[in-house]
């Protein structure tokens, strides 16, 4: 076409990090520390910090900074730890995909469509919330049904209120935190309704956000219908039976104008998928090795885009590793390949990373399916460790040391969390 068309801008980096939440910032810092000279960090939001910017409650950074910070404070500290001359930060910029020339295509008002060539990529794109469609709540579709995270954004960042009387469906952490926030804002919270027999959020949040504010938590109860034509007018709730089927004869109407959904987060794994990385059907994030490399060589991932974390400190730890590994991929000197696949066994929903190497120490994160008072963590026949109270809502962290696996020679290592008898 016309000769006057502006050349499409293009930039070259050693490592490009997608997403500037705590994972992205830690990955960028990790890549720089490990010697990557030119690092790019991109985020679609106008500011770095990711989801932390709307988490104005405290409870971040106890492990990493040794004190309890609010989300924005944590983000600020992480930013300060990260900034240096070899790092470019692009905000208000959206990474669309990787084009035919294997370059990332980044859209922004400032640069239009920027092409980014990178020796390695770290995906740190966080998570998105599950929506109403995912659980198919019957009823009408009025205004006022929204995810808890959107409500959190409206209240904490924009200074607006989502309604006057709210019902919260699901007991995920964001919902619990929003129950407290809304109460503090003068909005009545009619209750938190959870389908399962146990809460999905951290115990700390149940105590501090519900109990302390006398907000009722109804376990084994769900919303069976949303009412209202234009705006929510109420919901019908019903207890559920052992097969989670609603017991409609015990249904009741709860008037409200707002329904917040806190029914879980899903890794934002679209970019990983489009780059051809294998996705774990359980975590819904990419399958990763012990260096946080996906099945696509040179593409690494960390944070909520891999699996949902409850504590930012572990996000940082995992992401620093991803950043360092990405640098090593570019500079040469990657760690030897993994030789053992972790296989989730009894009462284990998933393990991350998916593979490890018997010659190094690893941190393995896992989630259980069912709560257990006292349990054993077993790594095949090779190793056994006592665990205290485990619940699905709280990630279990295990250090796996080479000596645990001495003499272990198989390729698959089964991970179980089994009940431990009295004693």
């Amino acid at each position: 076409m016309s000769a006057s068309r502006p050349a499409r801008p293009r930039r070259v980096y050693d490592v490009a990090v997608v997403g500037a939440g705590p994972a992205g910032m830690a990955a960028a810092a990790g890549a720089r520390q490990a010697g990557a000279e030119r690092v790019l960090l991109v985020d679609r939001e106008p500011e770095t910090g990711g989801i932390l910017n709307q988490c104005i409650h405290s409870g971040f950074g106890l492990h990493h900074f040794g004190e309890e910070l609010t989300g924005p404070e944590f983000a600020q500290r992480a930013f300060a730890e990260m900034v240096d001359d070899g790092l470019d930060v692009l905000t208000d910029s959206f990474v669309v995909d990787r084009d035919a020339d294997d370059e990332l295509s980044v859209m922004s008002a400032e640069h239009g469509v920027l092409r980014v060539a990178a020796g390695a990529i770290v995906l740190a794109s966080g998570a998105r919330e599950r929506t109403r469609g995912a659980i198919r709540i019957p009823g009408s579709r009025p205004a006022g049904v929204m995810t808890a995270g959107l409500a959190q954004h409206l209240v904490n960042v924009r200074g607006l209120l989502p309604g006057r009387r709210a019902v919260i469906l699901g007991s995920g952490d964001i919902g619990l935190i929003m129950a407290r926030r809304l109460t503090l804002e003068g909005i009545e919270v009619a209750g938190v309704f959870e389908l399962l027999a146990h809460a999905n959020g951290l115990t700390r949040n149940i105590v501090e956000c519900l109990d302390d504010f006398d907000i009722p938590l109804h376990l084994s109860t769900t919303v069976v219908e949303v009412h209202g034509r234009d705006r929510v007018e109420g919901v019908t709730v019903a207890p559920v039976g052992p097969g989670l089927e609603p017991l409609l004869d015990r249904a009741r109407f709860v008037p409200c104008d707002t329904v917040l959904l806190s029914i879980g987060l899903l890794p934002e794994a679209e970019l990983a998928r489009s780059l051809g990385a294998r996705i774990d059907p359980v975590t819904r994030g990419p399958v990763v090795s012990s260096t946080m490399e996906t099945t696509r060589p040179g593409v690494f991932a960390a944070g909520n885009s891999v699996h949902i974390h409850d504590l930012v400190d572990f996000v940082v730890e995992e992401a620093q590793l991803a950043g360092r590994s990405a640098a090593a991929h570019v500079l040469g000197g990657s760690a030897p390949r993994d030789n053992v696949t972790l296989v989730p066994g009894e009462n284990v929903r998933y393990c991350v990373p998916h593979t490890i190497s018997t010659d190094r120490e690893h941190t393995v994160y896992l989630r259980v399916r069912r709560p257990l008072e006292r349990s054993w963590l077993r790594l095949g026949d090779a190793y056994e460790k006592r665990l205290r109270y485990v619940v699905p809502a709280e990630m279990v962290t295990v250090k796996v040391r080479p000596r645990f696996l001495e003499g272990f020679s198989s390729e698959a290592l089964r991970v179980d969390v089994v009940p431990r008898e009295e004693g």
Partner: protein
Amino acid sequence: MSARGTIPREVDVAVVGGGVVGCAIARALSQFELDVCLIDRETDVGFGTSKANSGIIHAGHHSASGTLKGTLEWAGNQQWGPLADELGIGFERVGDLTVAFDEDEVATLERLRRQAVEREVPGVELWDGPRLRREEPNLSPEIVAGLFAPSTGVINPYEACFALAEDAVANGVSLLLDAPVHSIDVVPDGLALGLPEGTVQARVVVNAAGLGADRIEAMVGLHTFDLVARKGEEYLLDKRLEGLVRRIVFPCPTPTSKGTLVIPTFDGTIMIGPTAVDVDDRDDLTTTSDGAAQVLRAARRLVPGISPGDCIAEFAGVRAVATTNDFVIGATEVPGFVNVAGIQSPGLTAAPAIAELATRLVAEQGLALSPEPSPVPFERCPVPVRDLDGATRAERASADPAFGRVVCRCELVTEGEVRGAIRRGATTLDGVKFRTRAGMGRCQGGSCTWRVMEALSAETGRPVDALTKRGGDSWLVLRREDPMIDGATS
């Protein structure tokens, strides 16, 4: 809520109902030298049944012989091609497959094939198992044969309404929204329509009020048909399943229903549905757990790879079915009052042909139709950024930075497009959503809602707490009452 648009005192034709049918009629009339107004009670055109359906432009071999709907269906199918082209709206002849699980059903397919030949529906072929599996590998292995009809298409029905109405307005039609017609009086030389804030006097009234058409008719003292409200639920699946089927898949029809379909919508999302259940309440747009179970079961029978976890959204639409089970189109005893009612499925398909017929009926009421000497050509919406190649995207973004800023990440919609949609008439969150797809993707607006609200507020000058999801009382946020806090941006 007050009506939007300037209420004209006198017009030649008032079209009541801004669904796809009313919009098509208004547009057809706008090609002549007539004063026309298009009236709808909703806040946007197409917000009745026309935005909540399967979006299929049927080929014309499914419907029963000897009906008006059957005749207008095939005529409409033929007209949508050039019309969609002219209006630049999403329409593609993806073709459909009616599938058979056993020999009895194969016999039904054979009967449908003969019907297609009689009606001169071209290209209809019977495919055997191996051919089917080659063309559509994800179909159930238990399917033994399929009837392929290449002329069936998919359309974005709401886009059709917006474009038809916009073209009508560009050619002089006055559009009145948030304007329920509550009375019609017979006056000398015409009919006077009562609106919340005034009256419009029209020489001819076209009653295209969908589910409200019997009430509109009653306003002039007529009772020529009865309506049954028949609800259909539809479920949308995650975009990841794009390409699961390339053609619309129908089960073998039963005497009462076309059944539950698997539909590759124009935008690539797979949709499954609809159900067909008679309901007492015409406003009943609820989805139900029975409906979901029924749709999923039926869809999985056709395409086993679909799973309940793939649903990202659901909706319901209500068909206005006349008890004669056919369209009710014609003049009435009341001079100047024309019915275009009972427009059940395939009303979307038939709409352009219905408009042609309605135009003739309007002329028969004594209005001279002289072609508009200088029709305004339609200014199409620009091609969505998500459909542009990298180089063209870059060009668009460097010409206007707003086309570089991504507002909706799931569907790749830029701020430039959102603002464009608002300038073309969107005033609500749903208005923007149906024009741009912002909020239609897998996160269902979780991440773009605020950005769209900001754009709506900036373009319309209304504070965010005055914005709605889709008009009426569908408010979105409240302002903090605490005077110490500098709350909402406006």
